[in-house]
């Protein structure tokens, strides 16, 4: 279908999506950036205040250092969960491409937690972890350290299966001739893994790191259900901290919006860095 014939059909083909996209994304996004420079309690009483909100985000006297704490907490959480999820996901994917008996059953079971929503997952693990900690007279909300490892365990349980699926697809795309050639040349199993399989599944590794990284940074539901940021706001990840700034503290809407912009910039920077990294790798191959 060429351009000329299709163009008059804009109303039917593209307009519904475009209008919904304006309502659902473009307008809120633009308004959000504008409001981050304003003081407001509802959208109608916004008064521009310049960069005051941004300064407040990083001001220990106004925000009690909560955002900075959440930023470090989230960064640490993202690093640990990216490493553990990808490591275990890749190991299980390697095992499940060996043609072991029961492969399909294992794959089904490992993927299952992904379909369960974050809120439900949070309460499942709250029950289990509190049950274990109760033996030592502790609870998840006793210290942010327990909340941290609780979230790590939860995210591993949920996301290993998802990454496993992507790694399996990557490993199955390695041409068998390459592995045979390496074996004929006398490569050991470990050498085949390190010098043939790993370089060939690099695209999958990039995708999975990207997914786990952004998932960890954007995590909200699990955090809300598992600890709700307790004790105090010590186990808040960035997303929950922003939510609580908006809806938990009166008069802090502007600061919350400024936090949201900073948060978006961080996530955006991570995504761009990741894309750039993928690009250089593709050139090398």
């Amino acid at each position, binding site marked *: *279908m*060429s*351009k000329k*014939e299709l163009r008059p059909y*804009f109303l039917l083909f*593209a307009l519904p*999506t*475009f209008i*919904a*996209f304006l*309502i*659902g*994304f473009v307008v*809120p*996004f633009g*308004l*959000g950036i504008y*409001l981050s420079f304003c003081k407001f309690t509802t*959208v109608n009483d916004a008064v521009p205040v310049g960069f005051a909100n941004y300064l407040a985000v990083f001001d220990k006297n106004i925000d009690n250092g909560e955002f900075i704490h959440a930023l470090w907490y989230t960064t640490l959480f993202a690093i640990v969960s990216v490493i553990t999820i990808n490591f275990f996901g890749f190991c*299980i994917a390697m095992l499940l*491409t*060996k*043609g*072991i*008996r*029961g492969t399909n*059953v*294992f*794959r*089904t079971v*490992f993927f*299952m*937690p992904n*379909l*369960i*929503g*974050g*809120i*439900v997952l949070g*309460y*499942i*693990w709250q*029950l*289990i972890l509190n*049950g274990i900690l109760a033996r030592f007279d502790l609870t998840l909300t006793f210290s942010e350290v327990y909340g941290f490892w609780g979230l790590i365990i939860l995210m591993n*349980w949920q996301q290993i299966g998802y990454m496993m*699926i992507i790694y399996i697809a990557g490993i*199955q795309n390695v041409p*068998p001739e390459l592995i045979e050639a390496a074996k004929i040349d006398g490569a050991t199993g470990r050498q085949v893994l390190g010098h043939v399989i790993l370089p060939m599944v690099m695209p999958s590794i990039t*995708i999975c790191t990207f997914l786990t990284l952004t998932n960890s*940074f954007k995590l909200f539901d699990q955090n809300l259900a598992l600890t709700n940021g307790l004790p105090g706001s010590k186990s808040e990840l960035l*997303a929950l901290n922003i*939510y609580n700034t*908006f809806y938990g503290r009166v008069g802090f*809407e502007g600061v919350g919006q400024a936090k*949201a912009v900073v*948060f*978006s910039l961080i*996530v*955006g920077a991570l995504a761009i860095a990741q894309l750039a990294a993928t690009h250089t790798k593709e050139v090398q191959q």
Partner: protein
Amino acid sequence: MAKYIPETIQKGDLLPPDVQALVDEKAKKSSYTYNARSSPYSMLWTVVLSIISVIYVVPVLLVLVNSFKKKAYISRNPFNLPTSDTFVGLENYKNGIEKIGFFQAFGNSLLITIGSVIVIILCCSMAGWYITRVNSIFTKCFYYLCVFSMIVPFQMVMYTLSKTSDALHLGTPWGIIIVYLGFGAGLAVFMFCGFAKSIPLEIEEAAMIDGCNPIQTYFKVVMPILKPTAISVSILEAMWIWNDYLLPSLILDKTKYKTVPIAIQYLKGGYGSVDMGAMMAMLVLAIVPIIIFYAFSQKYIIDGVVAGAVKG
């Protein structure tokens, strides 16, 4: 010359020999596994993986077991099986269903998820095809905005989106479908554009020469070719919308409409003690339909995830 192999080829379709050879080669490659069934470690690995599988299933079983216990015994001893003292039968279920209006919430979730997915697939596949075929500044901007919207975290638009939808009175299960179309359009348009680019123009030109107008061309020729992508997109969007908590909790009028995640969070709400019995029962009711659905459509779900990851 690379030949175009439609994804919809079925086993047993009669194909020209050269195309058949390509299909066979593709099948051979994808079914390749490191054959280790004969190796002595094979049994060992099966045992190890079985143990891990049990660890994977235990959390869900634990919730199921606890849903039959008296609420006072749940947080104290979650790992004990119910005894004649602690067993309460279906009381937790009855209690929980009444407290949060579970079936209404379930109906709302079903309506919102199915409605949104249908609308997203229909509107975004049309938009994706239009964007790919009509190359103008507008379509380019639209495309890049969609890609951009996939990166932006929800917290960025959280407050302003809830105000916008309030102003437009979208706080009903029908209204929220429009919000989901807008916020889900990024991924869907991106994936449909990616696939529409690979459809050869000749197919559409042939349809036009046979007298189809663009609408007929779309529904009779393009849409069937887009089907595999449509399945992937609907799986990804359905997984997101069914489990989404924050967006509906901000946009829906919560006194009238709840979804399943909102209803469960509502059980926790306030500062009082939580009815753990009802909580466990509702968690079970939230999980069971998903597992049944998963059992029947596993293959599509897993393929959808792979396709989404490769294109996203």
